[in-house]
């Protein structure tokens, strides 16, 4: 049983490949990559004029199951992933109940096995109940298959507990993913503290709330030698901290979201569609960390280009309609991002601010290595022979309009409604099986 993807532009940054040729898949694994290697395959996909890349890897998404199935399920979330070109997603443990026990982790893995379109890896809680008071049984979570630990949605607020988490997890070789936010500084804020918040009369979250937490986490990584991964870094000064930490050789990795690479806090003001009174108060642009300034966005793009940031992670945060169709202060934080991530980021390539190779790297082998997933799944995020045959085939020129009702995720909460994007996923292949086809 063999499948060939023929004649596409193959971009495989881990192997330094950017050629026109074929990818040959045999028995669910990559067999060969090169000109004409797919000639003898029993099945073929014509990829001429298209880009063929390793299946995308998302180290940060919310699948909402168990407990919040009205927002998303493992089935719909992984379908959204497949549509977005993702073949591996790591789901965050802020479910109901939180994934702080071996049983809960196994439940998600079994559900994913049964109904998931793509590979699901599970992140366990750092603390029991995500309450930030006592460490969860990290070794047991690891034995049940947890690939990392995070209380995402909340920071590990207590610095001493964060220190212990980094120390303890180091024996397991697994990273602690922190959501860097100093809650005393963010103090109930609902958007970035800046001119838009002042204009709208909304409580702001200062950039310093993130920067203080990033600086603290880096100091603790230095103190403990533990593996720290920083979730959704969004400010220029936080990136400066990360850059210094990397230069000092500290074991710190960091991710950025597609929306923090492309949108500013003005999105809350302007919104999409008709806005009586001219002020949108767009709850679909309400996200934590908040959308920041143009300076911060530029710094994120630069840090992604120069390698300060390891990867792009969607922070796909689907919500039900009623969670967003309400007063701004009451609205849930989060953006449904799996299906728009690639096209949104391709805009950076089209604008000449990022190379296609670097973008693909940051969506594939970058995240795989950041969390050490490639040790568990050799070749993850690459087209290396022997690796699982995970591929995305996309048309970098195809334009489409984001229509929230057209998303396959249950979360229609996107600030991109009506926006024209260029770049469309046509086929997603996971373990050699076509899991999405336009």
């Amino acid at each position, binding site marked *: 049983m063999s499948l060939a993807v023929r004649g596409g532009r193959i971009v495989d940054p881990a192997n330094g490949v950017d050629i026109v040729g074929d990818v040959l898949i045999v028995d669910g694994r990559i067999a060969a990559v090169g000109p004409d290697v797919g000639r003898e395959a029993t099945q073929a996909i014509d990829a001429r004029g298209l880009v063929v890349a390793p299946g995308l890897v998302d180290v940060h998404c919310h699948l909402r199951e168990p407990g919040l199935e009205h927002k998303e399920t493992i089935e719909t979330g992984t379908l959204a992933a497949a549509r977005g070109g993702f073949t591996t997603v790591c789901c965050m443990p802020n479910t109901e109940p939180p994934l702080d026990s071996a049983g809960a982790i196994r439940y998600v893995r079994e559900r994913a096995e049964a109904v998931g379109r793509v590979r699901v890896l599970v992140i366990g809680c750092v603390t029991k109940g995500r309450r930030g008071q006592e460490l969860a049984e990290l070794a047991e979570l690891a034995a049940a298959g947890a690939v990392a630990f995070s209380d995402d949605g909340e920071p590990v607020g207590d610095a001493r507990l964060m220190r212990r988490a980094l120390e303890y997890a180091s024996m397991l070789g697994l990273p602690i993913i922190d959501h860097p936010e100093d809650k005393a500084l963010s103090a109930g804020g609902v958007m970035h503290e*800046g*001119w*838009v918040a*002042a204009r709208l009369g909304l409580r702001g979250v200062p950039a310093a709330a993130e920067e203080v937490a990033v600086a603290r986490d880096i100091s603790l990584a230095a103190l403990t030698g533990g593996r720290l991964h920083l979730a959704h870094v969004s400010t220029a000064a936080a990136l400066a901290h990360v850059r210094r930490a990397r230069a000092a050789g500290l074991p710190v990795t960091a991710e950025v979201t597609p929306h923090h690479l492309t949108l500013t806090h003005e999105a809350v003001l302007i919104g999409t569609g008709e806005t*009586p009174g001219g002020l949108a108060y767009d709850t679909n642009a309400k996200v934590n960390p908040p959308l920041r300034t143009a300076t911060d966005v530029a710094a994120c793009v630069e840090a992604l280009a120069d390698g300060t940031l390891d990867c792009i992670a969607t922070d796909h945060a689907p919500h039900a309609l009623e969670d967003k169709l309400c007063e*701004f202060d009451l609205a849930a934080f989060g953006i449904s991002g799996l299906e728009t991530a690639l096209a949104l980021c391709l805009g950076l390539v089209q604008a000449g601010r990022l190379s296609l190779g670097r973008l693909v790297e940051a969506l594939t082998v970058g995240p795989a290595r950041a969390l050490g997933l490639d040790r568990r799944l050799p070749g993850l995020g690459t087209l290396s022979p022997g690796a699982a045959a995970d591929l995305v085939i996309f048309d970098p020129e195809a334009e489409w309009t984001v229509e929230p009702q057209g998303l396959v995720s249950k979360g229609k909460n996107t600030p991109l409604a009506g926006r024209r994007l260029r770049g469309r996923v046509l086929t997603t292949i996971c373990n050699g099986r076509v899991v999405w086809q336009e």
Partner: protein
Amino acid sequence: MRERTEPRGPGAGLREPAQGWRRRHLLDLDELSAAEIELVLETAEAMQEVLGRDVPRVPALRGVTVVNLFYEPSTRTRASFELAAKALSADVVNIAAEASSVKKGESLLDTVRTLQALGAQVLVMRHWQSGAPYLVARHTQMSVINAGDGWHAHPSQALLDIYTMRRHLGDLKGRQVVIVGDIAHSRVARSNVWGLTKLGVQVVLCAPPTLLPPGLLPGRPTDEPSPFPPVTVETDLARALEGADVVMALRLQRERMEAGLLPSLREYIRLYQVNEERLALARPGALVMHPGPMNEGVEISPGAARSAQAVIEEQVANGVAVRMALLYLLTQEGGSRA
């Protein structure tokens, strides 16, 4: 009912559409032109004439239902809108929605849909969350009047403030209005900034840095645009008062101290209370205003509040005429809904 016919005044049968008014909602003054503000003020003058009659009532809104939906306690604004609606012969429904009703599960939009289904045409709403009336305006056929949303806007208050200033000072262009106090959390200050600057007033905002919106902090480095039209920001009250034609003190809420924004009431009073001694630093006869409710002895001294310069009660009285003008204007555009 005694009736008179005037070229521009609202006579008994006042039904002709007001010239130059095309709006269905009043959410804030930022979107109004100077001409539209003038039109509201002129209409309010005509309404004031109505209020001076023996029977202060005209049938302009007969058959129109006005709902006052208040999610925050309010005495003067709610009563003022109610009196205004009644003076125009509208039917008025008052709803004091508790904050807890949200927690009980009925969403704001559900409530609004219900009111619309019951036949209301005008929704006057007060909400403790900034932007709530904007959400409602997007999802209703009713005319929405923002009677105060969170820290964001209170356009009818700003209009009555401007109306009051105009009655005493005439043309406001080039005048200097000093707003003192908790600017950061003040919807009154924000709406006044928009309205006054459109009329060519120089606005001076005076507060300690912890009570200023972050975007206005002097000396804070930023490459961001200003959230407001050009205003002067001054942390020193004595300097702020130089040349002032109007001094407006804002209510100081006790939570601000609890939130650590101020060291003590005592220090606030010492630095920012509007009192008679400080009033001497302003222009002679400068108007003293306050949007209420006042904490006498805190942001304003009893002497200043009751001085000959104070027009605080007049603000309240003028509020009815201004709100009549708003109700009238907003129901004329597309008035066939009535």
